[in-house]
């Protein structure tokens, strides 16, 4: 699980390093997971995307992904307080660890009916 390149770093630094070097030659495939992120309605309006691929270090949680997205799309902060996350079509707690090829959806307030 641990990437050899990160052994001399603190866990936080290791994660940052992994994220920063995700395209680097030295990365081991196993240290990254690649998922699909879906944006609906207001989240889509803000990001301008309905979906995107996203790579983060393995053992990242749904909350870690949300934090990463908030850095990529600053305006997502507007709706951060009212969205819910869904992982593989089920509402998810913030602490669930995301697996490779998972589908993470940003669910803004719903209004069906």
């Amino acid at each position, binding site marked *: 699980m641990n990437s050899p390149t990160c052994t001399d770093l603190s866990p936080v630094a290791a994660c940052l390093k992994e994220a920063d070097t995700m395209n680097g030659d030295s990365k081991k495939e196993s240290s990254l997971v690649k998922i699909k992120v*879906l944006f*609906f*309605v*207001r989240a889509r309006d803000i990001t301008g995307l309905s979906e995107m691929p996203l790579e983060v270090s393995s053992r990242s949680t749904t909350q870690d992904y949300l934090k990463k997205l908030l850095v990529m799309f600053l305006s997502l902060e507007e709706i951060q307080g*009212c969205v*819910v*996350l*869904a992982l593989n*079509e*089920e*509402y*998810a*707690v*913030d602490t669930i660890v995301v697996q490779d090829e998972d589908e993470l*959806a940003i*669910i*803004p*307030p*719903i*209004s*069906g*009916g």
Partner: protein
Amino acid sequence: MAAEDDKNLVEISENTIDIARYMNYVSAPQAGAIATFAGTTRDTFESKTVLELRYEAYVPMAIRCIKSICSSARVSWNLYSIAVAHRLGTVPVGETSIFIAVSSVHRADALEACRFIIDEVKATVPIWKKEVYSNGEVWKENSEFLERRSDLGNKDVDCSAKMAESMERSNKKPCCGTKVKVDDDVSQK
């Protein structure tokens, strides 16, 4: 999920909702009652003129959620058949956006389950509507969702005891986490 022999029909599509078809689906000689709910596009909101509603959904999750709600309703009430249809895309004023039909041997089960299903759909199913006015538009937000939001995110924590029971039946995590909690409320009435 529903047992193999449960008669549930869940449809989400851009087609006009054919009410007669769903009534026909739930009707049966052994069912003495059919309760229905139809949600239709209203022409005004807070004195603004509404031209139309535009719906969209996270379709596969929405279908799973509604099926999960149907299963949950069957735990609380003795139901014969359930049909839930939700329309997507543009729904002009006066037309139906959601239709629910529930049949049961006696009326109380169908009536109460129908109310439960529409309330749960509004609180937990990932479907959205944009209200289009003559001078603007807005994504709507159901108050039922906002009240339940934190529960949805923490279902495994908040509902663990009941959740275990629910998962035992299905061997699968329910899509809409807090439905069991609502069952409790209903049973206390």
